[in-house]
């Protein structure tokens, strides 16, 4: 069973066109407060967690097949070279295939010590950031945009690795801002660091 969670503080109506176009037969849930990101320590999308029949995490949060090839895009036209496009598609296809292998054969499951080692480490600052984010989103929805912006900014300051918080706050300012010049400037500051850490699957194309 797939559970797709939209980390979307603008709410269900904003996510609806994507979900309807996907014609999904699995659960598509709306998460305006980014609760799932908070519970599982996720700082970006798309992220995936594999959960077995007993409710146990057998692969902690990891990049769900996305790659960093988008960083070679032309930021103005969003054009990608055919080679980068193909590499990006290959990453997604590889990940989907790995999920299929897990379902059919149990492959790729991590034992408990290996899974624990890959868990995110949630700090006091990150926990506080999620509280500020929650209050900011609530205030934004209750005609207190200025005060909301303060809490969202504090969340970002406390949890600078969270692209979810930065991009959601930018999107609440104006739809499109999350992929605007500010986003590209922020990606630049990563330098050699990945935007999407590749999932630890043997042979994953990077």
């Amino acid at each position: 069973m797939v559970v797709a969670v939209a980390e979307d503080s603008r709410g269900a109506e904003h996510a609806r066109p994507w979900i309807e176009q996907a014609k999904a037969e699995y659960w598509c849930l709306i998460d305006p407060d980014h609760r799932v990101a908070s519970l599982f320590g996720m700082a970006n999308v798309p992220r995936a967690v594999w959960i077995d029949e007993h409710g146990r995490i057998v692969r902690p949060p990891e990049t769900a097949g996305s790659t960093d090839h988008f960083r070679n895009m032309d930021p103005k036209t969003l054009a990608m070279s055919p080679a980068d496009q193909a590499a990006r598609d290959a990453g997604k296809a590889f990940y989907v295939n790995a999920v299929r292998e897990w379902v059919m054969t149990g492959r790729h499951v991590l034992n408990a010590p290996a899974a624990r080692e890959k868990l995110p480490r949630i700090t006091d600052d990150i926990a506080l950031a999620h509280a500020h984010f929650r209050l900011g989103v609530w205030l934004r929805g209750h005609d207190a945009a200025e005060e909301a912006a303060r809490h969202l900014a504090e969340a970002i300051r406390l949890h600078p690795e969270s692209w979810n918080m930065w991009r959601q706050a930018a999107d609440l300012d104006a739809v499109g801002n999350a992929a605007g010049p500010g986003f590209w400037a922020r990606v630049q500051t990563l330098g050699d660091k990945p935007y999407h850490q590749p999932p630890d699957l043997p042979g994953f194309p990077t």
Partner: protein
Amino acid sequence: MTTILTERGEFTVAATNGLWLTGGEAARVTGWTLKPEGMCRDGQCVPMPPMALRDGRVDVEAFWRRLGHPVLCADDRQTWVLGTGAGERNAALAGLMAPDFTLSDLSGTPRSLSDLRGKKVLLVTWATW
């Protein structure tokens, strides 16, 4: 009235002097029950200092901080967030049981992760932004 945002939902309560609540309202919001030995849940009790108790009311802000959780409020002190601290988050994940949550789909139907027990679940996040 005061609004309190917690992981369990959004609550409207009659708080006084910040986040002082009756025992009944404190239980509704936090899931912890006020007893003579302190605030209790699942057979576990957290002793409360006398200054956090008065006239049958409990200082929920003080209690929540005592549990190691963050507490925030809006400028007008009418909206509060009772957050979840890093210790509880890390402990829950270290147990490797997927933390449960309930969220709604497009039709407003609430769905809980725990309802899928018995199936393999690929939990995946995405966003429109």
